[in-house]
Protein backbone atom coordinates (compact mmCIF):
# COMPACT_ATOMS: atom_id res chain seq x y z
CA UNK A 1 0.00 0.00 0.00
CA UNK A 2 1.23 3.48 -0.84
CA UNK A 3 1.91 5.64 2.21
CA UNK A 4 0.39 8.92 1.16
CA UNK A 5 1.08 11.98 3.32
CA UNK A 6 -2.57 11.99 4.30
CA UNK A 7 -2.49 8.41 5.59
CA UNK A 8 0.69 9.23 7.48
CA UNK A 9 -1.09 12.12 9.17
CA UNK A 10 -4.00 9.83 10.00
CA UNK A 11 -1.70 7.33 11.60
CA UNK A 12 -0.02 9.97 13.75
CA UNK A 13 -3.40 11.33 14.77
CA UNK A 14 -4.43 7.81 15.70
CA UNK A 15 -1.79 7.60 18.37
CA UNK A 16 -3.40 10.12 20.67
CA UNK A 17 -7.12 10.16 19.97
CA UNK A 18 -7.95 6.81 21.53
CA UNK A 19 -6.21 7.89 24.70
CA UNK A 20 -8.11 11.17 24.73
CA UNK A 21 -11.35 9.17 24.54
CA UNK A 22 -10.22 6.77 27.23
CA UNK A 23 -8.88 9.40 29.64
CA UNK A 24 -12.07 10.51 31.47
CA UNK A 25 -13.26 6.93 31.98
CA UNK A 26 -9.83 5.86 33.16
CA UNK A 27 -9.77 8.71 35.69
CA UNK A 28 -13.07 7.34 37.05
CA UNK A 29 -11.92 3.71 37.11
CA UNK A 30 -8.54 4.42 38.66
CA UNK A 31 -9.58 7.20 41.04
CA UNK A 32 -12.87 5.74 42.23
CA UNK A 33 -12.23 2.02 41.89
CA UNK A 34 -8.64 0.81 41.66
CA UNK A 35 -6.96 3.14 44.15
CA UNK A 36 -9.74 3.00 46.79
CA UNK A 37 -9.74 -0.79 46.50
CA UNK A 38 -5.96 -0.95 46.98
CA UNK A 39 -6.26 1.51 49.88
CA UNK A 40 -8.32 -1.12 51.70
CA UNK A 41 -5.11 -3.12 52.20
CA UNK A 42 -3.30 -0.58 54.43
CA UNK A 43 -6.61 0.28 56.06
CA UNK A 44 -7.13 -3.37 57.01
CA UNK A 45 -3.80 -3.24 58.86
CA UNK A 46 -4.64 -0.05 60.79
CA UNK A 47 -6.47 0.63 64.00
CA UNK A 48 -9.10 3.25 64.83
CA UNK A 49 -7.91 6.48 66.51
CA UNK A 50 -10.99 6.63 68.69
CA UNK A 51 -14.30 4.90 69.14
CA UNK A 52 -16.19 7.91 67.83
CA UNK A 53 -14.96 8.40 64.29
CA UNK A 54 -13.74 6.65 61.15
CA UNK A 55 -10.16 8.04 61.41
CA UNK A 56 -7.45 5.40 61.62
CA UNK A 57 -3.68 5.04 62.01
CA UNK A 58 -1.55 2.50 60.14
CA UNK A 59 0.07 0.00 62.55
CA UNK A 60 0.84 -3.18 60.52
CA UNK A 61 -1.91 -4.75 62.60
CA UNK A 62 -2.12 -8.20 60.97
CA UNK A 63 -4.09 -9.38 63.97
CA UNK A 64 -7.16 -7.71 62.41
CA UNK A 65 -7.41 -10.62 60.00
CA UNK A 66 -7.18 -13.25 62.73
CA UNK A 67 -9.81 -11.48 64.80
CA UNK A 68 -12.14 -11.01 61.88
CA UNK A 69 -11.83 -14.64 60.76
CA UNK A 70 -12.31 -15.84 64.32
CA UNK A 71 -15.34 -13.68 65.02
CA UNK A 72 -17.03 -13.86 61.62
CA UNK A 73 -15.91 -17.22 60.21
CA UNK A 74 -19.38 -18.69 60.77
CA UNK A 75 -20.98 -15.68 59.06
CA UNK A 76 -18.71 -16.15 56.03
CA UNK A 77 -19.56 -19.83 55.93
CA UNK A 78 -23.28 -19.07 56.15
CA UNK A 79 -22.99 -16.44 53.38
CA UNK A 80 -21.37 -18.84 50.95
CA UNK A 81 -23.73 -21.59 52.08
CA UNK A 82 -26.79 -19.48 51.31
CA UNK A 83 -25.26 -18.29 48.04
CA UNK A 84 -24.47 -21.86 46.94
CA UNK A 85 -27.84 -23.30 47.93
CA UNK A 86 -29.81 -20.48 46.26
CA UNK A 87 -27.65 -20.70 43.12
CA UNK A 88 -28.04 -24.48 43.04
CA UNK A 89 -31.82 -24.29 43.46
CA UNK A 90 -31.91 -21.49 40.90
CA UNK A 91 -29.96 -23.57 38.38
CA UNK A 92 -32.38 -26.49 38.76
CA UNK A 93 -35.10 -24.12 37.55
CA UNK A 94 -33.06 -21.85 35.27
CA UNK A 95 -31.47 -24.54 33.10
CA UNK A 96 -34.74 -26.14 32.00
CA UNK A 97 -36.31 -22.69 31.56
CA UNK A 98 -33.40 -21.51 29.39
CA UNK A 99 -33.62 -24.75 27.39
CA UNK A 100 -37.34 -24.26 26.94
CA UNK A 101 -36.91 -20.64 25.84
CA UNK A 102 -34.18 -21.54 23.34
CA UNK A 103 -35.54 -24.73 21.83
CA UNK A 104 -39.29 -24.52 22.40
CA UNK A 105 -39.73 -20.73 22.51
CA UNK A 106 -39.99 -20.23 18.75
CA UNK A 107 -40.97 -16.70 17.85
CA UNK A 108 -41.92 -15.98 21.50
CA UNK A 109 -38.25 -16.13 22.46
CA UNK A 110 -37.65 -12.34 22.83
CA UNK A 111 -40.90 -11.95 24.77
CA UNK A 112 -40.01 -14.80 27.15
CA UNK A 113 -36.55 -13.32 27.73
CA UNK A 114 -38.24 -9.97 28.46
CA UNK A 115 -40.54 -11.68 30.97
CA UNK A 116 -37.51 -13.15 32.76
CA UNK A 117 -35.88 -9.71 32.99
CA UNK A 118 -39.00 -7.71 33.89
CA UNK A 119 -39.13 -8.54 37.64
CA UNK A 120 -35.60 -7.20 38.14
CA UNK A 121 -36.84 -3.80 37.02
CA UNK A 122 -38.71 -3.61 40.33
CA UNK A 123 -36.60 -2.54 43.29
CA UNK A 124 -35.37 -5.57 45.22
CA UNK A 125 -36.55 -3.83 48.38
CA UNK A 126 -40.10 -3.76 47.05
CA UNK A 127 -39.74 -7.44 46.18
CA UNK A 128 -38.54 -8.05 49.75
CA UNK A 129 -41.69 -6.26 51.00
CA UNK A 130 -43.69 -8.60 48.74
CA UNK A 131 -42.00 -11.67 50.20
CA UNK A 132 -42.67 -10.32 53.70
CA UNK A 133 -46.40 -10.27 52.91
CA UNK A 134 -46.28 -13.73 51.36
CA UNK A 135 -44.24 -15.43 54.08
CA UNK A 136 -45.59 -13.50 57.09
CA UNK A 137 -47.46 -15.14 59.96
CA UNK A 138 -50.83 -14.23 58.40
CA UNK A 139 -49.60 -14.77 54.84
CA UNK A 140 -50.91 -17.24 52.27
CA UNK A 141 -47.85 -19.54 52.21
CA UNK A 142 -47.96 -20.28 55.92
CA UNK A 143 -51.75 -20.56 55.68
CA UNK A 144 -51.40 -23.24 53.02
CA UNK A 145 -48.78 -25.12 55.04
CA UNK A 146 -51.03 -25.08 58.11
CA UNK A 147 -54.09 -26.15 56.11
CA UNK A 148 -52.16 -29.11 54.70
CA UNK A 149 -50.95 -30.02 58.20
CA UNK A 150 -47.31 -29.77 57.22
CA UNK A 151 -46.22 -27.47 60.05
CA UNK A 152 -44.60 -30.21 62.13
CA UNK A 153 -42.86 -31.65 59.09
CA UNK A 154 -41.53 -28.18 58.22
CA UNK A 155 -40.26 -27.65 61.73
CA UNK A 156 -38.66 -31.09 61.74
CA UNK A 157 -36.87 -30.50 58.44
CA UNK A 158 -35.64 -27.12 59.71
CA UNK A 159 -37.51 -25.28 56.96
CA UNK A 160 -39.73 -23.54 59.50
CA UNK A 161 -38.77 -22.21 62.90
CA UNK A 162 -41.47 -22.57 65.57
CA UNK A 163 -44.02 -22.74 62.78
CA UNK A 164 -42.87 -19.45 61.26
CA UNK A 165 -41.31 -18.73 57.87
CA UNK A 166 -40.03 -15.18 58.22
CA UNK A 167 -36.63 -14.83 59.88
CA UNK A 168 -35.55 -18.30 58.80
CA UNK A 169 -32.84 -19.50 56.39
CA UNK A 170 -35.67 -20.70 54.13
CA UNK A 171 -36.95 -17.15 53.65
CA UNK A 172 -33.47 -15.80 52.86
CA UNK A 173 -32.72 -18.58 50.36
CA UNK A 174 -36.13 -18.09 48.71
CA UNK A 175 -35.54 -14.36 48.33
CA UNK A 176 -32.01 -14.89 47.00
CA UNK A 177 -33.12 -17.56 44.51
CA UNK A 178 -35.86 -15.31 43.17
CA UNK A 179 -33.41 -12.40 42.82
CA UNK A 180 -30.71 -14.46 41.08
CA UNK A 181 -32.92 -16.32 38.59
CA UNK A 182 -32.58 -13.77 35.74
CA UNK A 183 -28.80 -13.75 36.12
CA UNK A 184 -28.83 -17.54 35.77
CA UNK A 185 -31.27 -17.75 32.87
CA UNK A 186 -29.81 -15.04 30.62
CA UNK A 187 -26.22 -16.36 30.19
CA UNK A 188 -27.63 -19.85 29.65
CA UNK A 189 -30.00 -18.65 26.93
CA UNK A 190 -27.16 -16.72 25.27
CA UNK A 191 -24.93 -19.80 25.31
CA UNK A 192 -27.71 -22.03 23.99
CA UNK A 193 -28.51 -19.54 21.22
CA UNK A 194 -25.01 -20.21 19.91
CA UNK A 195 -25.83 -23.90 19.47
CA UNK A 196 -26.51 -24.57 15.82
CA UNK A 197 -29.82 -26.41 15.35
CA UNK A 198 -28.22 -28.36 12.51
CA UNK A 199 -25.95 -30.08 15.04
CA UNK A 200 -29.04 -31.46 16.75
CA UNK A 201 -30.55 -32.49 13.40
CA UNK A 202 -27.29 -34.21 12.47
CA UNK A 203 -27.28 -36.05 15.78
CA UNK A 204 -30.88 -37.11 15.20
CA UNK A 205 -30.00 -38.32 11.70
CA UNK A 206 -27.33 -40.47 13.30
CA UNK A 207 -30.06 -42.04 15.46
CA UNK A 208 -29.09 -40.31 18.71
CA UNK A 209 -32.08 -40.31 21.06
CA UNK A 210 -33.29 -37.26 22.96
CA UNK A 211 -31.15 -37.99 25.99
CA UNK A 212 -27.98 -38.59 23.96
CA UNK A 213 -28.55 -35.47 21.87
CA UNK A 214 -28.79 -33.51 25.10
CA UNK A 215 -25.74 -35.17 26.68
CA UNK A 216 -23.50 -34.96 23.61
CA UNK A 217 -24.57 -31.65 22.05
CA UNK A 218 -26.56 -29.31 24.26
CA UNK A 219 -24.86 -29.94 27.60
CA UNK A 220 -21.22 -29.49 26.49
CA UNK A 221 -22.04 -26.44 24.35
CA UNK A 222 -23.98 -24.75 27.15
CA UNK A 223 -21.14 -25.19 29.66
CA UNK A 224 -19.60 -21.71 29.08
CA UNK A 225 -22.98 -20.15 29.81
CA UNK A 226 -23.26 -22.29 32.91
CA UNK A 227 -19.92 -20.99 34.18
CA UNK A 228 -20.84 -17.32 33.74
CA UNK A 229 -24.29 -17.95 35.18
CA UNK A 230 -22.70 -19.43 38.30
CA UNK A 231 -20.44 -16.41 38.77
CA UNK A 232 -23.13 -13.83 38.01
CA UNK A 233 -25.32 -15.44 40.64
CA UNK A 234 -22.77 -16.38 43.32
CA UNK A 235 -21.04 -12.99 43.53
CA UNK A 236 -24.07 -10.83 44.32
CA UNK A 237 -25.69 -13.57 46.42
CA UNK A 238 -22.67 -14.03 48.69
CA UNK A 239 -22.43 -10.29 49.32
CA UNK A 240 -26.16 -9.66 49.60
CA UNK A 241 -27.41 -7.32 52.30
CA UNK A 242 -31.13 -6.90 51.65
CA UNK A 243 -32.51 -10.44 51.87
CA UNK A 244 -30.79 -11.44 55.13
CA UNK A 245 -31.67 -8.07 56.68
CA UNK A 246 -35.37 -8.04 55.85
CA UNK A 247 -36.27 -11.72 55.42
CA UNK A 248 -33.69 -13.29 57.72
CA UNK A 249 -33.75 -11.16 60.84
CA UNK A 250 -31.00 -11.07 63.47
CA UNK A 251 -30.07 -14.77 63.30
CA UNK A 252 -29.41 -15.03 59.58
CA UNK A 253 -27.02 -12.12 59.06
CA UNK A 254 -24.63 -12.53 56.13
CA UNK A 255 -21.20 -11.07 55.58
CA UNK A 256 -22.57 -7.97 53.84
CA UNK A 257 -24.62 -7.05 56.90
CA UNK A 258 -21.58 -7.64 59.13
CA UNK A 259 -19.36 -5.34 57.05
CA UNK A 260 -22.07 -2.67 57.05
CA UNK A 261 -22.47 -2.99 60.81
CA UNK A 262 -18.72 -2.86 61.46
CA UNK A 263 -18.27 0.24 59.33
CA UNK A 264 -21.43 2.27 59.94
CA UNK A 265 -22.44 1.27 63.46
CA UNK A 266 -19.32 0.12 65.28
CA UNK A 267 -17.02 2.50 63.30
CA UNK A 268 -14.42 -0.29 63.04
CA UNK A 269 -13.15 0.63 59.56
CA UNK A 270 -10.01 -1.58 59.67
CA UNK A 271 -11.97 -4.70 60.54
CA UNK A 272 -14.60 -3.87 57.94
CA UNK A 273 -11.80 -3.51 55.36
CA UNK A 274 -10.20 -6.80 56.43
CA UNK A 275 -13.51 -8.65 56.16
CA UNK A 276 -14.27 -7.05 52.78
CA UNK A 277 -10.85 -8.14 51.50
CA UNK A 278 -11.38 -11.70 52.76
CA UNK A 279 -14.72 -11.81 50.94
CA UNK A 280 -13.10 -10.47 47.80
CA UNK A 281 -10.24 -12.97 47.98
CA UNK A 282 -12.69 -15.86 48.24
CA UNK A 283 -14.71 -14.56 45.30
CA UNK A 284 -11.59 -13.84 43.24
CA UNK A 285 -10.71 -17.51 43.62
CA UNK A 286 -13.93 -18.40 41.85
CA UNK A 287 -13.32 -15.73 39.20
CA UNK A 288 -9.79 -16.98 38.51
CA UNK A 289 -11.15 -20.48 38.03
CA UNK A 290 -13.64 -19.05 35.53
CA UNK A 291 -10.91 -17.02 33.76
CA UNK A 292 -8.94 -20.21 33.25
CA UNK A 293 -11.86 -21.97 31.65
CA UNK A 294 -13.73 -19.22 29.81
CA UNK A 295 -12.56 -15.67 30.18
CA UNK A 296 -14.39 -12.49 31.07
CA UNK A 297 -15.63 -11.99 27.52
CA UNK A 298 -18.06 -14.79 28.16
CA UNK A 299 -19.71 -12.91 31.00
CA UNK A 300 -23.04 -12.21 29.36
CA UNK A 301 -24.51 -8.86 30.26
CA UNK A 302 -28.17 -8.45 31.06
Amino acid at each position, binding site marked *: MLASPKAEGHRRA*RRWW*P*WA*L*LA*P*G*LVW*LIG*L*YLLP*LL*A*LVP*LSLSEPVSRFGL*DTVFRWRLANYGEVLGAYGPVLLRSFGFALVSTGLGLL*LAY*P*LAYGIRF*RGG*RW*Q*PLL*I*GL*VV*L*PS*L*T*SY*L*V*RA*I*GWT*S*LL*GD*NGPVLGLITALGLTDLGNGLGLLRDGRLLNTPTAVVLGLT*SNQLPFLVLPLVVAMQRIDRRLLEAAADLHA*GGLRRFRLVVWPLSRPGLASALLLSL*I*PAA*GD*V*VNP*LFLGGPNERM*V*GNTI*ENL*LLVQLQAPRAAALA*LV*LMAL*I*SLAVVLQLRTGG*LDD*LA*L*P
Partner: protein
Amino acid sequence: MNRIGGWLLGLASVLAFALLYAPIVVMVLFSFNAPRGRFNLVWQGFTLANWRQPLADAALTQAFLASLALALAAAVLAVLLGGLMALALGRVRLRGGRAIALLLALPLTNPEIVLATALLNLFVDLNLPRGPLTLLLSHSLFCLSYAALTLKARLAGFDPSLELAAQDLGAPPLAAFRRVTLPLLAPGLLAAGLLSFSLSFDDYVISSFTAGETVTLPLYLAGAFQREISPQIQVLSTLVLLVSGVLLILATPRSSGSGRR
Protein backbone atom coordinates in the same frame (compact mmCIF):
# COMPACT_ATOMS: atom_id res chain seq x y z
CA MET B 1 -38.42 -40.33 27.84
CA ASN B 2 -39.38 -37.33 25.72
CA ARG B 3 -42.77 -37.01 27.38
CA ILE B 4 -41.26 -37.07 30.89
CA GLY B 5 -38.59 -34.60 29.74
CA GLY B 6 -41.17 -32.22 28.36
CA TRP B 7 -43.19 -32.51 31.54
CA LEU B 8 -40.17 -31.71 33.72
CA LEU B 9 -39.32 -28.80 31.43
CA GLY B 10 -42.79 -27.36 31.88
CA LEU B 11 -42.80 -27.89 35.64
CA ALA B 12 -39.43 -26.17 36.11
CA SER B 13 -40.47 -23.26 33.91
CA VAL B 14 -43.74 -22.77 35.79
CA LEU B 15 -41.90 -22.88 39.13
CA ALA B 16 -39.27 -20.43 37.89
CA PHE B 17 -41.89 -17.93 36.73
CA ALA B 18 -43.81 -18.40 39.98
CA LEU B 19 -40.70 -17.56 41.98
CA LEU B 20 -39.94 -14.58 39.74
CA TYR B 21 -43.43 -13.14 39.81
CA ALA B 22 -44.77 -14.01 43.29
CA PRO B 23 -43.44 -10.79 44.90
CA ILE B 24 -44.47 -8.75 41.84
CA VAL B 25 -48.06 -10.01 41.93
CA VAL B 26 -48.21 -9.22 45.64
CA MET B 27 -46.90 -5.73 44.95
CA VAL B 28 -49.57 -4.99 42.33
CA LEU B 29 -52.32 -6.55 44.48
CA PHE B 30 -51.35 -4.64 47.62
CA SER B 31 -51.46 -1.33 45.76
CA PHE B 32 -55.25 -1.88 45.95
CA ASN B 33 -55.24 -2.80 49.64
CA ALA B 34 -56.82 -0.70 52.40
CA PRO B 35 -54.44 -1.43 55.27
CA ARG B 36 -55.30 -0.95 58.93
CA GLY B 37 -52.33 0.52 60.79
CA ARG B 38 -49.04 1.66 59.36
CA PHE B 39 -47.86 -1.49 57.56
CA ASN B 40 -49.41 -2.45 54.24
CA LEU B 41 -48.39 -6.11 54.59
CA VAL B 42 -51.64 -7.95 55.36
CA TRP B 43 -54.62 -8.00 52.99
CA GLN B 44 -57.65 -6.18 54.44
CA GLY B 45 -59.87 -5.11 51.57
CA PHE B 46 -60.03 -3.67 48.09
CA THR B 47 -59.83 0.08 47.49
CA LEU B 48 -58.91 2.48 44.71
CA ALA B 49 -58.03 5.24 47.18
CA ASN B 50 -54.27 4.67 46.92
CA TRP B 51 -54.34 5.02 43.16
CA ARG B 52 -56.34 8.26 43.42
CA GLN B 53 -53.59 9.72 45.62
CA PRO B 54 -50.33 8.20 44.42
CA LEU B 55 -48.32 11.10 45.89
CA ALA B 56 -50.01 11.15 49.31
CA ASP B 57 -46.83 9.98 51.07
CA ALA B 58 -44.71 13.16 50.80
CA ALA B 59 -41.45 11.67 52.08
CA LEU B 60 -41.81 8.77 49.63
CA THR B 61 -42.45 11.14 46.73
CA GLN B 62 -39.40 13.18 47.63
CA ALA B 63 -37.18 10.08 47.78
CA PHE B 64 -38.65 8.92 44.48
CA LEU B 65 -37.79 12.23 42.79
CA ALA B 66 -34.28 12.21 44.30
CA SER B 67 -33.71 8.72 42.86
CA LEU B 68 -35.03 9.76 39.44
CA ALA B 69 -32.65 12.72 39.29
CA LEU B 70 -29.69 10.70 40.54
CA ALA B 71 -30.31 7.79 38.15
CA LEU B 72 -30.71 10.15 35.21
CA ALA B 73 -27.47 12.00 35.98
CA ALA B 74 -25.54 8.79 36.69
CA ALA B 75 -26.81 7.16 33.48
CA VAL B 76 -25.87 10.15 31.32
CA LEU B 77 -22.42 10.34 32.87
CA ALA B 78 -21.83 6.58 32.62
CA VAL B 79 -22.98 6.37 28.99
CA LEU B 80 -20.83 9.37 28.08
CA LEU B 81 -17.66 8.08 29.75
CA GLY B 82 -18.35 4.46 28.85
CA GLY B 83 -19.28 5.30 25.26
CA LEU B 84 -16.00 7.14 24.71
CA MET B 85 -14.07 4.20 26.18
CA ALA B 86 -15.97 1.71 24.03
CA LEU B 87 -15.25 3.76 20.89
CA ALA B 88 -11.52 3.80 21.65
CA LEU B 89 -11.33 0.12 22.61
CA GLY B 90 -13.57 -1.07 19.81
CA ARG B 91 -11.73 0.66 16.97
CA VAL B 92 -7.99 0.39 17.44
CA ARG B 93 -5.58 -2.10 18.84
CA LEU B 94 -3.98 -0.23 21.71
CA ARG B 95 -0.96 -1.18 23.72
CA GLY B 96 -2.50 -1.78 27.13
CA GLY B 97 -5.93 -2.30 25.59
CA ARG B 98 -6.30 -5.69 27.23
CA ALA B 99 -5.36 -4.26 30.63
CA ILE B 100 -7.95 -1.52 30.22
CA ALA B 101 -10.62 -4.02 29.20
CA LEU B 102 -9.77 -6.02 32.31
CA LEU B 103 -9.97 -2.90 34.49
CA LEU B 104 -13.42 -2.25 33.00
CA ALA B 105 -14.66 -5.76 33.71
CA LEU B 106 -13.18 -6.09 37.20
CA PRO B 107 -15.81 -4.02 39.04
CA LEU B 108 -18.41 -6.55 37.85
CA THR B 109 -16.62 -9.27 39.81
CA ASN B 110 -16.74 -7.40 43.13
CA PRO B 111 -19.65 -7.75 45.49
CA GLU B 112 -21.26 -4.35 45.91
CA ILE B 113 -20.43 -4.34 49.60
CA VAL B 114 -16.67 -4.35 48.86
CA LEU B 115 -17.02 -1.41 46.48
CA ALA B 116 -19.16 0.41 49.04
CA THR B 117 -16.51 -0.05 51.74
CA ALA B 118 -13.76 1.19 49.43
CA LEU B 119 -15.77 4.24 48.32
CA LEU B 120 -16.79 5.28 51.82
CA ASN B 121 -13.19 5.13 53.00
CA LEU B 122 -12.09 7.15 49.97
CA PHE B 123 -14.63 9.88 50.75
CA VAL B 124 -13.64 9.85 54.42
CA ASP B 125 -9.94 10.17 53.48
CA LEU B 126 -10.70 13.03 51.08
CA ASN B 127 -12.90 14.73 53.68
CA LEU B 128 -15.65 14.83 51.06
CA PRO B 129 -18.99 15.26 52.86
CA ARG B 130 -21.40 12.46 51.93
CA GLY B 131 -24.33 13.69 49.86
CA PRO B 132 -25.55 14.11 46.29
CA LEU B 133 -22.02 14.52 44.88
CA THR B 134 -20.61 11.34 46.45
CA LEU B 135 -23.76 9.49 45.38
CA LEU B 136 -23.32 10.62 41.79
CA LEU B 137 -19.62 9.71 41.77
CA SER B 138 -20.27 6.21 43.12
CA HIS B 139 -23.29 5.51 40.94
CA SER B 140 -21.62 6.70 37.74
CA LEU B 141 -18.67 4.47 38.60
CA PHE B 142 -20.59 1.21 38.96
CA CYS B 143 -22.72 2.02 35.90
CA LEU B 144 -19.62 2.84 33.83
CA SER B 145 -18.50 -0.78 33.42
CA TYR B 146 -21.95 -1.97 32.38
CA ALA B 147 -22.39 0.90 29.93
CA ALA B 148 -18.92 0.55 28.38
CA LEU B 149 -19.15 -3.24 28.01
CA THR B 150 -22.67 -3.09 26.53
CA LEU B 151 -21.54 -0.51 23.97
CA LYS B 152 -18.30 -2.36 23.24
CA ALA B 153 -20.32 -5.46 22.42
CA ARG B 154 -22.57 -3.43 20.08
CA LEU B 155 -19.57 -1.83 18.38
CA ALA B 156 -17.99 -5.25 17.81
CA GLY B 157 -20.86 -6.12 15.50
CA PHE B 158 -20.51 -2.86 13.58
CA ASP B 159 -18.73 -2.60 10.24
CA PRO B 160 -16.04 0.15 10.38
CA SER B 161 -15.89 0.26 6.57
CA LEU B 162 -19.24 2.12 6.63
CA GLU B 163 -17.58 5.06 8.29
CA LEU B 164 -14.57 4.83 5.97
CA ALA B 165 -16.94 4.80 3.01
CA ALA B 166 -18.53 8.02 4.26
CA GLN B 167 -15.07 9.55 4.58
CA ASP B 168 -14.17 8.41 1.06
CA LEU B 169 -17.27 10.21 -0.17
CA GLY B 170 -15.82 13.40 1.28
CA ALA B 171 -17.35 13.54 4.73
CA PRO B 172 -14.98 14.89 7.39
CA PRO B 173 -14.34 12.32 10.17
CA LEU B 174 -16.57 14.07 12.69
CA ALA B 175 -19.43 14.36 10.20
CA ALA B 176 -19.00 10.70 9.27
CA PHE B 177 -19.22 9.82 12.94
CA ARG B 178 -22.33 11.95 13.45
CA ARG B 179 -24.15 10.86 10.30
CA VAL B 180 -23.15 7.18 10.19
CA THR B 181 -21.78 5.81 13.45
CA LEU B 182 -24.02 7.62 15.93
CA PRO B 183 -27.36 6.58 14.35
CA LEU B 184 -26.15 2.96 14.15
CA LEU B 185 -25.04 3.15 17.77
CA ALA B 186 -28.28 4.76 19.01
CA PRO B 187 -30.03 1.52 20.09
CA GLY B 188 -26.88 0.53 21.99
CA LEU B 189 -26.73 3.92 23.67
CA LEU B 190 -30.37 3.57 24.67
CA ALA B 191 -29.80 0.06 26.05
CA ALA B 192 -26.71 1.12 27.99
CA GLY B 193 -28.53 4.16 29.32
CA LEU B 194 -31.57 2.17 30.44
CA LEU B 195 -29.37 -0.45 32.08
CA SER B 196 -27.38 2.23 33.93
CA PHE B 197 -30.55 4.04 34.94
CA SER B 198 -32.15 0.94 36.41
CA LEU B 199 -28.94 -0.11 38.21
CA SER B 200 -28.64 3.32 39.80
CA PHE B 201 -32.36 3.65 40.54
CA ASP B 202 -32.33 0.31 42.41
CA ASP B 203 -29.04 0.63 44.24
CA TYR B 204 -29.25 0.17 47.98
CA VAL B 205 -25.89 -1.08 49.28
CA ILE B 206 -23.55 1.54 47.82
CA SER B 207 -26.08 4.31 48.47
CA SER B 208 -26.43 3.36 52.12
CA PHE B 209 -22.67 3.93 52.49
CA THR B 210 -22.28 7.10 50.45
CA ALA B 211 -25.59 9.00 50.74
CA GLY B 212 -25.08 10.92 53.98
CA GLU B 213 -28.36 12.72 54.71
CA THR B 214 -29.71 12.29 51.19
CA VAL B 215 -32.59 9.81 50.98
CA THR B 216 -32.97 7.87 47.73
CA LEU B 217 -35.93 5.58 47.06
CA PRO B 218 -34.20 2.32 48.10
CA LEU B 219 -32.92 3.98 51.28
CA TYR B 220 -36.43 5.21 52.03
CA LEU B 221 -37.83 1.71 51.43
CA ALA B 222 -35.24 0.16 53.75
CA GLY B 223 -36.30 2.61 56.45
CA ALA B 224 -39.95 1.85 55.75
CA PHE B 225 -39.53 -1.66 57.17
CA GLN B 226 -39.15 -0.03 60.61
CA ARG B 227 -41.34 3.04 60.15
CA GLU B 228 -44.32 2.74 57.87
CA ILE B 229 -45.10 0.83 54.69
CA SER B 230 -47.69 3.04 53.02
CA PRO B 231 -49.71 1.62 50.11
CA GLN B 232 -48.27 4.42 47.98
CA ILE B 233 -45.02 2.40 47.95
CA GLN B 234 -46.81 -0.34 46.01
CA VAL B 235 -48.63 2.17 43.80
CA LEU B 236 -45.45 3.98 42.74
CA SER B 237 -43.58 0.68 42.29
CA THR B 238 -46.35 -0.65 40.05
CA LEU B 239 -46.16 2.54 37.98
CA VAL B 240 -42.37 2.15 37.69
CA LEU B 241 -42.84 -1.45 36.58
CA LEU B 242 -45.34 -0.42 33.89
CA VAL B 243 -43.08 2.33 32.54
CA SER B 244 -39.97 0.14 32.55
CA GLY B 245 -41.91 -2.67 30.93
CA VAL B 246 -42.79 -0.37 28.03
CA LEU B 247 -39.20 0.87 27.80
CA LEU B 248 -37.96 -2.73 27.83
CA ILE B 249 -40.19 -3.56 24.86
CA LEU B 250 -38.91 -0.48 23.01
CA ALA B 251 -35.26 -1.33 23.75
CA THR B 252 -35.56 -5.01 22.75
CA PRO B 253 -34.08 -5.46 19.29
CA ARG B 254 -36.72 -6.63 16.83
CA SER B 255 -35.82 -10.13 15.78
CA SER B 256 -36.93 -11.29 12.39
CA GLY B 257 -38.12 -14.84 11.86
CA SER B 258 -36.74 -17.61 14.05
CA GLY B 259 -35.08 -15.38 16.62
CA ARG B 260 -31.61 -16.79 15.97
CA ARG B 261 -28.90 -14.20 16.17
